[in-house]
């Protein structure tokens, strides 16, 4: 199984100003890495989920995500925004954006990795470490350490 996240999938200076731009920008990195086969198809799936209920949560987090037929591997794209991007959380825009892509027919093993990723997102220490990370490599190592225990 491919890594959940690589440094190519991290953007520490996300320029986008709205959630769709931010999602598209991260999704393009996923496509470039071969994790997403059809960019627009995947974005449409993410948009459907986002329309059900905004994915932003308090504490500056946005989690656009989808299970999609256009995804090959469970993948995390991570973006950090200076200005913040509105993901519908009540306390304001998100500065940490996690694009979670899950393959449609993903097996339990795939889903378990994403589940433990989601669990880590709740921890303030994990978020803080991501905010302080100086480079993409640090982010990748943080995720590997916290989520995969590697």
């Amino acid at each position: 199984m491919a890594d959940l996240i690589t440094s190519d999938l991290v953007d520490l200076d996300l320029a986008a100003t709205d959630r769709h731009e931010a999602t598209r920008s991260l999704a393009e990195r996923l496509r470039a890495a071969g994790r997403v086969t059809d960019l627009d198809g995947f974005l449409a799936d993410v948009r459907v989920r986002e329309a059900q209920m905004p994915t932003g949560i308090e504490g500056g987090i946005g989690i656009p995500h989808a299970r999609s037929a256009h995804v090959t591997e469970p993948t995390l794209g991570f973006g950090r925004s200076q200005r913040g991007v509105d993901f519908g959380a009540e306390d304001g825009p998100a500065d940490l954006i996690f694009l979670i892509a899950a393959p449609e027919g993903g097996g339990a093993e795939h889903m378990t990795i994403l589940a433990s990723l989601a669990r880590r997102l709740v921890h303030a220490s994990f978020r803080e470490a991501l905010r302080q990370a100086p480079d993409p490599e640090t982010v990748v190592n943080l995720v590997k350490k916290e989520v995969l225990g590697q």
Partner: protein
Amino acid sequence: MRIVAVTSCPTGIAHTYMAAEALEQAARAAGHEIKVETQGAAGAEPLPPQDIAAADAVVFAADVEVRDRERFAGKPLVQTSVKRAINDAPSLIAEAEAAAAPAAGGPVAHALSELGEVDREQLAMDTAARPETKVDQQAGLGTRLRQWLMTGVSYMIPFVAAGGILIALAFLLGGPEVANKVNGGTFQGVEYPGVSDLSRLVVEAGWAGLLFKIGATAFFMLVPILAGFIAYAMADRPGIVPGIVAGLLAGEIGAGFLGGLVGGLLAGAIVLAIKRVKVPRGVAGVMPVVVIPLVSTLVVGALMLVVIGQPIAAATDGLTNWLDSLSGTNAVLLGILLGLMMAFDMGGPVNKVAYAFGLASLASGNLKVMAAVMAAGMTPPLGLALASVVRKRLFTPAERQAGEAAWLLGASFITEGAIPFAAADPVRVIPSLMVGSAVTGALAMAFGNTSRAPHGGIWVIGLIGRPVLYVVAIAAGTLVTAGCVIVAKSIGRTAPAEAEAAMVPAGATPATG
């Protein structure tokens, strides 16, 4: 405090797990134990039933329907969105504490937060308005069998009381011939056609006829309700349909309440068996609504009609022929036999054979058999009513209430008044009833009592020959029945009142929020 929670969200890959983590952190920070079932894409590991049973409060943090939420019925519940659990888990835990607090002593509180109207209705339908059962899943099979039967009985008792008292009132107001006015037949040599058009019920049978018809209709549901709620106690909501159908079929094939009891247990067992079959998630959605009711009803119905119905029909014929061949033998022996039969299944096939024998004798001019049959049919409810008064602690609160109605039902020759007691504890109760009825049947024969009425009980005492001795025969059987029931129930078992208090869960509470 012990908390169980379910989290679920539309995609099942992110918020479900974030909410679970947030709830776990907040609960532990507040010093509580918590177990969370994440109904997400990684597959839900169901909460162990013992953890649900032990939980003081339930938290649903869900944006989509919680699967199998009936598992949590009767528990103090806090229901909210998955996001609120992530954003503000500590206050949610505090709400769970508040919801659990009154549950210890008084009625259960449901704390509802951030619920839309649809959610409230759904919640009311799914959990709060759900009938309670008396079933403790941890108990051994013997105890649970009794709890299943008690659940069925507790739902049946109001039907017995309402129907039986209405019928008794109809007899009081309209005379015993009211039954024939409504249903047809011969009473005192008068042929009644019966009411075929219900809109003419009051005109043809009077207000007493109206009471009789309503009471008889409530009585008609007695065995279906018994069977339906036995199956419900075993297998939850999916058990109700096959259980009720089995009970209706028990009536159709003349199997009486014992047939309904067996049918209800069969229906519950079949549903439980079907639930064990692992099905793909796509099919799982239609299992409770379509597949389980369809298959279980078909199977239990076929069993009732073919496997149970045909032997009962054959046995009924055999018994009838045998009784006919006994005509002219020792009258006291015949009285004993008829008494045993009347009390065996209270409206079931054996009882019906004895009663039909009485009717046939009456039609051919032998008034003694009818008198013995009627007297023997009166003692089961009377004896149980007496026993439940003199030894209260041997009976559950529900049974004691049934006992109050049983005086009137017994006096009116409505033997069904004994069914709640017999269905809850057949092995102890039925033999006791049979002994008492045999005594009464024998005495009525020995005294030479006669009856020109086929029903009506004490209200037709004017049509009874040697009425004082008739009352003596009934009183003797009532005393014997009560004595046998008390002895049988005192052997090898703890007071049911305490046992029942322990087995009733927090209970179903109407949604007030």
